C-alpha cells in the first residue's frame, strides 16, 4: 500500500513542482491527441454519416471493417505508418518519422474508425423523422444534414470523447512513430513505458496518475460542453 501511496505523493509533487520532463510529456500528449481527434473528427463524422445514410453495395462489409478497425492493435497501425514514413518508405523523404506529426498521423488513423462508428450509431439511433421534416420545410440536403447533426450532437460529442480516449491512452503509435524522444515526442504513455522498463515503478505510476487526471479533466470539459448543448 505504501508503494501506491508513495506514487500518489510523487504524482502530486511532480504536478506541483512543474517538472519540465513531466510538463513536456503532458503537453506533447495533449497536443498530439487533440490534433489527432480534430483530424479524425473531420474525416470520421462525415464518413459515419455517409455510411449510415447512404445506400450502396457492400454496406454491411464497410460496417464490419469499421468495427474491426476499432479493435486494431495500435502497434499494427504504428507499423503500417512506419513503413510509409521510414527512409525506405514512399513518404520517407518528408522526414516525418520520429516527429509529433508522425504521431498525429498514426493517432488520426487510430481514432477515425472509432469516431466514424460512434457517429454511425448516433445517426442510426436518431429519430427517422428529422431528415424528412427538415426537407419538407424547404431545407436543402446540406441544411437537412446539418439539422440532423444538430439533433444528434450529444452522440457526436460522445464520438469525439471516445476518439480522444482511444488516442490519449495508446502507447504503440506514439512509441513507434514518435520514438520516445525526450522533450520532443515523449508522451505520458511512452514515458510510463520507459520508466517502468527502467524499474522506476513509482515514477511510472505517478505519470499514470497524471494521465488519469488529465484524461478526466479533458473528458469533464467535453461533458460540460455536451451538457451545455442540451436545450
Amino acid at each position, binding site marked *: 500500500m505504501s508503494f501506491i501511496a508513495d506514487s500518489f505523493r510523487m504524482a502530486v509533487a511532480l504536478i506541483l513542482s512543474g517538472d519540465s520532463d513531466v510538463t513536456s510529456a503532458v503537453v506533447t500528449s495533449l497536443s498530439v491527441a487533440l490534433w489527432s481527434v480534430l483530424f479524425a473528427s473531420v474525416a470520421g463524422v462525415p464518413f459515419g454519416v455517409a455510411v449510415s445514410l447512404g445506400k450502396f453495395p457492400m454496406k454491411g462489409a464497410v460496417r464490419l471493417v469499421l468495427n474491426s478497425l476499432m479493435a486494431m492493435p495500435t502497434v499494427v497501425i504504428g507499423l503500417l505508418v512506419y513503413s510509409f514514413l521510414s527512409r525506405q518508405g514512399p513518404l520517407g523523404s518528408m522526414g516525418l518519422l520520429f516527429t509529433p506529426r508522425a504521431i498525429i498521423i498514426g493517432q488520426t488513423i487510430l481514432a477515425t474508425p472509432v469516431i466514424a462508428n460512434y457517429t454511425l450509431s448516433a445517426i442510426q439511433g436518431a*429519430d427517422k*423523422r*428529422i431528415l*424528412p*421534416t*427538415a*426537407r*419538407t*420545410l*424547404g*431545407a*436543402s*440536403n446540406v*441544411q437537412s444534414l446539418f*439539422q440532423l447533426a*444538430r*439533433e444528434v450532437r450529444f452522440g457526436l460529442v460522445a464520438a469525439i470523447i471516445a476518439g480522444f480516449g482511444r488516442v490519449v491512452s495508446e502507447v504503440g503509435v506514439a512509441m513507434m512513430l514518435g520514438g520516445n524522444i525526450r522533450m520532443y515526442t515523449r508522451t505520458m504513455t511512452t514515458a510510463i513505458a520507459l520508466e517502468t522498463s527502467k524499474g522506476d515503478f513509482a515514477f511510472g505510476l505517478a505519470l499514470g496518475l497524471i494521465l488519469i487526471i488529465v484524461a478526466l479533466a479533458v473528458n469533464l470539459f467535453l461533458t460540460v460542453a455536451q451538457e451545455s448543448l442540451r*436545450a
Partner: protein
Amino acid sequence: MSIAKYQLSSVQTSYGKTLGVAIDDLSLSSGGLYVLAGPNGSGKSTLLGILAFLNKPDRGTVSFDGVPITWTRKECALLRRRVTLLYQRPYLFSGSVASNVAFGPVARGDSKTMIQDIVRESLEKVGLSGFESRIARKLSGGESRRVALARALACKPEVLLLDEPVANVDRASATLFESLVVSLAAEGITLVISTHDDRLGARLGATVIYLEDGRLASPPEQLPSAVLPHRAEENHANS
C-alpha cells in the same frame, strides 16, 4: 382553362410486392381544398409523400403547375420550398418554439427582421402567441401539433399537405385547426388533408378523394361530399 396544381398520370409506388398507390389520373386545382379519405393502409400517406416531393413514384408522371417533375434532387429541393407536408406525428426540433417556427424561413435565407415577424404571425394564427421562448419538446401534445402547424405556415407554402392533422388532438385544437384550414383555403393555399374522419370533408366543404388499397375508389355512401376522384378538379372548378 386553368392549369392544375398537380396532375398525376399512371403513378404507381410499391413496397416490395405490396402496392403503395396506383393512380391512373388525378388533378388537383390551384387553391383547392381536398380531403384524402380511406382506411388504414389505403395509401394516403404514400400519396402525400409523392405530392410533397419526398418520395419518387416507381412509375408515372407528376406535373406541378403544368411542368412534369424529373425528380432530380435539386428540383425536388426547390419544389419543397413551395410545398410543405405536416406529418401526423410531427417532429419538433430541439430548442425553442421560435427556432422551430423559424426553421423554414431561415433555410430560405430570409432576413432576421422578416423571420421575427413571420414567427410572430404564424404563432398568432395557431393561437400560441407568446410561446416563442418556450422549449418545444416540453409542450403538450396539442400544443406541439400547433407549433408544427405554425412552422409549416411560416414557410408560406403554395400547397399545404396535412397528414391526419386532427387525429388524437383535443377538441379545442381540432376546432381551431378546422377554422384555420378554411381561412387558409380562402387565402388561395392549396390544401390536401388526409383523415380517418368521414365527416371532415363535409364540414370543411372540401372535395373528397377516396383511396382504397392504393387506388382511387368510389367513396362509400357515408361520405356525403365525396366525388369521383378523377373529377375532383372539375368539381372544384364548378364550386
